[in-house]
């Protein structure tokens, strides 16, 4: 794939961004990404937005937010699955031959409203809504099924969570929260057995924007310097219903991973240096590692992943930004030495119905 990263920006992480309207958050982040790329808005020929009306608290939220994202009088499209799916759409647009220089922007001011109320309304009205399914319960079902299938213990999950917080504490782009003690995690209450409250990555506010260009544009602008190449991308969806096969099959995760690896010519995880996983709970990281066949020695989420910041809808695209920073040697205190190829993962839907993987290479 001939798609290149020109610049990237993350809004400063916060549990709650209380001093800005959402359009200011989006504008500041898109503006910073363009600044990071050294590209003016006028040069863009398109914009891709990934956002969720229900989480933004407004129908057709792109009416207000397209322009702050850079789309005033530009070709703009919005996807609603997740920030990472925005990157997938952007990769398609740049590869189509129709576009050359664009920005993908995504955000989530999760503090604006109760996330679980939005999630409950995602249930279809006949079976799952009457029983009160929400995100936490779906993750609990996942933890139960994956825990049993893979033999994941509470101790392992607690250790995984603590390790996530330890890495996150070093990430200057994260919240740098105190690392909880093992006892504290173990003693936290169940929210949907076997899932404990401390197993979950707390949701935060945040935004991310990435400027990308086609190879054709780069040839026309020899002075432009990309910071990374998007060399592989894959996305898949699983079934909606949370049966056992769905919860333990990981078909969309594995399918996305395989497609992205194949696109960039990698044979397996051994050809990658690290992966930033969208692990909403400790159970997820433990299960994803096993599903993807990643050995314990493989570097997972050096940024701390969602334990560093977790603007739920765009956490996957935050992972993409962190992977870009790794391959461009700009990850600061969480930089892993000698990274040439890094993967980023995003997921969405009840118990991760949809998954996407992007692979970036240094240039």
């Amino acid at each position, binding site marked *: 794939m001939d798609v290149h990263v020109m610049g990237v920006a993350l809004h400063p992480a916060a549990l709650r961004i209380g001093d800005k309207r959402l359009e200011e958050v989006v504008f500041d982040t898109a503006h910073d990404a363009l600044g990071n790329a050294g590209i003016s808005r006028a040069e863009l020929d398109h914009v891709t937005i990934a956002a969720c009306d229900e989480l933004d608290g407004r129908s*057709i939220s792109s009416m207000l937010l397209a322009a702050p994202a850079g789309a005033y009088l530009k070709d*703009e499209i919005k*996807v609603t699955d997740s920030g990472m799916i925005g990157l997938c759409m952007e990769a398609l647009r740049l590869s189509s031959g129709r576009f050359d220089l664009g920005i993908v922007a995504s955000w989530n001011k999760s503090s604006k409203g109760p996330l679980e109320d939005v999630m409950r*309304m995602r249930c279809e009205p006949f079976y799952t809504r009457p029983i009160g399914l929400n995100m936490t319960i779906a993750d609990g079902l996942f933890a139960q099924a994956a825990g049993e299938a893979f033999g994941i213990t509470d101790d392992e999950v607690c250790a995984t969570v603590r390790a996530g917080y330890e890495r996150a504490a070093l990430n200057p782009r994260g919240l740098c929260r105190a690392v909880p003690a093992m006892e504290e995690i173990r003693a936290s209450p169940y929210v949907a057995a076997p899932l404990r409250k401390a197993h979950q990555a707390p949701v935060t506010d945040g935004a991310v924007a990435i400027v990308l260009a086609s190879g054709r544009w780069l040839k026309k602008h020899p002075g432009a310097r990309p910071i990374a190449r998007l060399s592989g991308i894959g996305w898949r*969806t699983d079934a909606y219903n949370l049966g056992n096969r769905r919860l333990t099959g990981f078909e969309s995760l594995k399918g996305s991973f395989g497609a992205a690896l194949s696109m960039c010519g990698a044979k397996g995880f051994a050809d990658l240096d690290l992966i930033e996983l969208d692990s909403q709970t400790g159970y997820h990281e433990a299960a994803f590692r096993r599903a993807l066949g990643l050995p314990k020695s493989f570097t997972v989420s050096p940024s701390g992943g969602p334990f560093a910041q977790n603007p739920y809808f765009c956490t996957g695209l935050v992972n993409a930004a962190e992977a870009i920073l790794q391959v461009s040697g700009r990850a600061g205190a969480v930089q892993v030495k000698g990274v040439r190829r890094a993967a980023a993962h995003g997921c969405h839907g009840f118990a991760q119905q949809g998954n996407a993987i992007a692979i970036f290479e240094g240039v």
Partner: protein
Amino acid sequence: MPKNRAAIIGVGETVFRKHHPDKTYVELAQEAAVKALADAGLTMDAIDAVVFSMAPTQFMGVNDADKWAVDSIFAAGKPFLRVHTGGATGGSALHAGYAHVASGMYRAVLVVGADRIAETPDAQHILNLIWDRFYEHDVALNTVTMTALSTHRQMHFHGTTQEQFARVVVRARRNAMKNPHAHLKGIITIDDVMRSPRVAWPYKLFDICPRSSGAAAVVVAHEDIAKEVCSRPAFINGIGAIANTVFMGDRMGPSADTEMSEIPEAAYAGREAYAQAGITDPIRQIQVVELYDPFSSTQFPQLESLNFCKRGEAARLSDEGAFEPGALLTVNPSGGTLCTNPIGVTGLVRVADAALQVMGKAGEAQVPGVRNALATALGGSVQFATCTVLGADSV
């Protein structure tokens, strides 16, 4: 210039009406998907990826309803994403499907969606929520009052009359008689429109689209597949889209970049699509247009912005019969959005109906000799526009 050319090779639509009490939302989407696949002569195994077309979910009451639909439209295990650009959603979804194929990553893509606007007792209350909580909610802005304000300006600039708008409705309802999927249809008169209940000046009830439920789907395939399995594909020869500011006040007056009453977004999107499709003289090269026209006043400025006539001429040409089926330009032979508006798929219905004309499958509504057809979609505060040029020949 796309790396890989793409064409529509299959079209599926349900019947559109206010309610479908016999089907769930996902069953509606399934019906359209099955019809499109059958029309293309493909099974789902041949489909590489799926794009879902769905605008605000507040009308039908299930957030992210596309995820619920995954199993019903046979998308599990495949690349899947949902596009949402308000009323322009269906047009944008088609463009997303096109990007899948043009990129070379996928060979055949199903673009499908469904909507049930009348699940909510008051769609305009939902549409009030698209506006700013602090400044605009309380002044009763919704999509009717929003476009009524714009229509004031159109009438002021060009002297267009309510009767001229009414003629558009009469033509649309008559055209829809030949469309088995249309929601509203029938023989009515200009007097009928003028006597219908006042809603927001200058709009009467018949000037306004219905709240429709139903689904639509198209199969977009690589040129190689299209030529192999389809005798008359509709090639996607040009796509264009634009996003303008939400603020209507910034789209009028001497310092504005654009004038809202002209629907200038159609001009931007059309210019781009025309350039790709080699359209230099639209009125001679394009035989059929399927315009996104939820209101009787939405056709004229689009026809002018898309260079089918000069600014201010469309109403007179309409009066003279230039936009009747088989005349100078056939406008909305399906009846258009005035007769059928399932918002989340309306733009896709425009594309589907335009594709049927190019493919020679429009039945009683078929216009003879269609080589090029154009479809538009509009969204938000009429700030989003898409334009798609379909052709019998690949450009």
